C-alpha cells in the first residue's frame, strides 16, 4: 500500500521534471544570442531575402508561445522536427548517434564503477595502511587528469608507439571500403573492428571517472564501519567477510546507488571531450555541432534524450533505493 503510493509519487515527480526540463530547453535556446540563420546568412550569395525565407520556413517568425505550443504538439506525436542544418529528420540522426555513443560510454562507465568499487573497498578495508594510500593516490591521479590530455597520451602510447589500437573513428576505413565494393566481410570481423576502436575512448572515460567512485565508496564504507551495528555484527562472531558485505557494504552502497544512477543517466549524453579526441561520431559531437549552428530542433532533441535518460535513471534509483533501504517508503 505504502509501496505503491511511493512509486506513484516518484513517477509523477519524474514526469513533472521532464516537462519542466523540456520547457527550459525550449526557452534557453531562444534566449541565447544569435539565431539559426546567423550562420546561414554568411553563406556566399546569401541575401536578406534568403534569410527571411528561412526564418519563415522554420516558423521563427511566429510568436514564442505559438512556437512553444507547436513544439509540444509535435513532441506529443513523437516528431522531433527537421534539422536546420542538413534538412534530415532529427529523430533518425539522434538514434544513429545514440547507437554509436551508448556502447562506448557504457563500457567506460561500467568499468569506472567496477574499478571505483574495488579501489574504494580496498582503501576502506586497509585503512591507514600503504594500500589505502596507494589506492586513493592512483584514483585521485587519474581523476585529476584532463580528459582530452589523457586521451591523447593513450593514443600516443597504444596507437603511435605500440601500434596496438586504432586512434580514431569507429571502423577501419579499409575494411568498410572493402565491404562497400562487395568484398565478403564477416560480421564478426566488423564487430571485432568496432570493439578495438571502442577500447581507447572507453578506457579514457573509465580512468577519469573511477576516482570519484573510489572516494565515495571509501568514505561511505568508513562511515558505516563506525556504526554500532557493524561493531555488533563483529561481536556476534560473524566472519569478517560477512560483516563487510552483509552489514557494512549493504548500507554503504546506498549513496553510491544515486551516483551510479546519475552517471548511467548521463551515458546518453555521451562525452564531448572523448568523442572529439577520438573522432567518435556520437551524441556528444552531434550536440556540440548543433549548438555551434543554433540548430534548434537538433539541440532540443539531444537535450530531450539526455533529460529523459537522466530522469528515468533517477526514477530507477529511487525505486531501487526503496528496495535496498526499508526506511524509505515509510
Amino acid at each position, binding site marked *: 500500500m505504502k509501496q505503491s503510493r511511493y512509486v506513484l509519487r516518484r513517477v509523477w515527480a519524474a514526469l513533472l521534471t521532464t516537462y519542466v526540463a523540456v520547457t527550459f530547453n525550449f526557452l534557453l535556446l531562444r534566449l541565447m544570442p544569435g539565431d539559426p540563420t546567423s550562420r546561414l546568412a554568411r553563406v556566399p550569395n546569401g541575401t536578406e531575402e534568403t534569410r527571411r525565407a528561412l526564418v519563415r520556413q522554420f516558423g521563427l517568425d511566429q510568436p514564442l508561445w505559438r512556437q512553444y505550443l507547436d513544439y509540444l504538439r509535435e513532441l506529443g506525436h513523437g516528431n522531433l522536427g527537421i534539422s536546420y542544418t542538413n534538412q534530415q529528420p532529427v529523430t533518425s540522426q539522434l538514434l544513429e548517434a545514440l547507437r554509436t555513443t551508448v556502447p562506448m560510454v557504457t563500457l567506460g562507465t561500467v568499468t569506472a564503477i567496477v574499478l571505483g568499487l574495488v579501489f574504494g573497498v580496498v582503501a576502506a578495508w586497509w585503512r591507514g595502511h600503504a594500500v589505502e594510500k596507494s589506492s586513493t593516490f592512483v584514483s585521485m591521479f587519474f581523476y585529476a587528469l584532463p580528459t582530452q590530455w589523457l586521451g591523447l597520451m593513450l593514443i600516443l602510447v597504444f596507437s603511435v608507439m605500440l601500434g596496438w589500437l586504432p586512434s580514431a573513428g569507429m571502423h577501419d576505413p579499409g575494411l568498410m571500403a572493402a565491404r562497400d565494393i562487395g568484398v565478403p566481410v564477416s560480421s564478426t570481423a566488423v564487430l571485432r573492428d568496432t570493439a578495438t576502436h571502442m577500447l581507447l575512448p572507453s578506457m579514457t572515460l573509465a580512468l577519469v571517472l573511477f576516482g570519484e567512485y573510489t572516494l565515495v565508496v571509501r568514505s561511505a564504507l568508513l562511515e558505516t564501519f563506525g556504526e*554500532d551495528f557493524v*561493531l*555488533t555484527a563483529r561481536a556476534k562472531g560473524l566472519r569478517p567477510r560477512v560483516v563487510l558485505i552483509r552489514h557494512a557494504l549493504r*548500507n554503504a552502497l546506498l549513496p553510491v546507488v544515486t551516483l551510479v544512477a546519475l552517471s548511467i543517466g548521463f551515458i546518453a549524453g555521451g562525452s564531448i571531450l572523448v568523442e572529439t579526441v577520438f573522432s567518435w561520431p556520437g551524441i556528444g559531437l552531434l550536440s556540440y555541432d548543433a549548438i555551434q549552428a543554433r540548430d534548434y530542433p537538433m539541440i532540443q532533441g539531444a537535450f530531450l534524450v539526455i533529460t529523459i535518460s537522466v530522469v528515468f535513471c533517477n526514477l530507477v534509483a529511487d525505486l531501487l533505493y526503496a528496495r535496498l533501504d526499508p526506511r524509505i517508503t515509510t
Partner: protein
Amino acid sequence: MTEPMLEVEDLRVTFRTGPRGTPLDVVRGVSFRLEQGQRLGLVGESGCGKSTTILTLMGLLPPNAEVSGAIRLDGVDILQGGERSMRPHRWTDIAMVFQGAMNAFNPTRTIGAQIAETMRGRGRANRKAAHARARALLGMVGIPPDRADRYPHELSGGMRQRAALAMALANEPRVLLADEPTTALDVMIQAQILELLERLTAELGLALVLVTHDLPLVVETCDRVAMMYAGRLVEIGPAATLFTAAAHPYTRMLFAATPSLDLDRRVTSLTGAPPRPDQELVGCDFAPRCDRAETICHVMSPRTTRVTEQHVAACHFADTGETHRLVPGVVR
C-alpha cells in the same frame, strides 16, 4: 578450589596514537573474577576505561590498541591467541548488549534475520530452526514474535533494546556484558529493561557485567560493585558494603554525590576532573581530588588492600576502617 568461570588478570590497554603521539594508557591493570550467576557492576566516571575493558573482553578493540594481561575462561587464556582464540567465544560464551543498543541493528535487515544469523554458520542451527528460535527469543523478552519480520526502524527504542537483549541471549552465553544498556531510554522503559535483565540473568544463570555510572541502579541490581578510576579498579566489594561502608574515598564521594530522596542529606559534588590518560601519574591517581589525601598519597601509589574477605580497595587508608564509614547521611 575450581577455576573461576571468568578471570581477568592485570588487564592493560594502551592506545597508540600515530607514530609520534603519546601512548594512551586507558586500562592500567584491571583484575576481577566472575562466577556463574554473579552480577558485577562496573562503575566510574566517563573515560575511566569501563567500555574499553568490556570491549577487550569481546576482543573488539581497534587495531591501534595494545593489550596485555590475561582473560581466562574456565582457566584457559583466550587473550593470547588474538582474534583466532577470541572469535569462537564471541556470542557463544560471552555476549554483549551495547551502549545505545538501539543502533545495534542493521537498518536494512529484519530483526529476526539479525538474531538468526548469530546462530548460523556455527553448525548450530539450520535456517528454519534459527528463525524459529529468534521468534522464541523475542517472545522471551516480551516482544510479539511476529515482529521478527519487521525492520529496526519499525520498533520503538525500548523494543529495540529488548530485541538487542534477545539477540545477546541467542547462543545461551554464560556471561552477558551490558554497557550502559539503558542510556537514551526514558525512566519507565529503563526500569522495565533492568527488571527484564535481572529476571533473565537469574532464570538462565547468566553472569552479568553491568557497566554504568548510575550508582543506585548498581546497588539495586548487582551483587558486587567494581569502582573504576583512571583505568584502575580502586575498589571491589559487595554492593551493600560499598554503599554503607566504602573503603575508598572515591567510592564514598561518588555515593555522596548521588541525589537522594532523603531531605536531610546534602548532595555534595566531586570537584576536579580525572587525570587524562596521557598524563604522567605519581602517587595515588585520586589524590588530587581526594578530601583525605596526605603526603604519602602524593608520592606513593597505593597497593590493593584486603578490607574483608570479599572487599578490596586501593587506598593507603583502606584498612583503617572507621574514618570512611562516616558517610554523611548514609549511616547515622
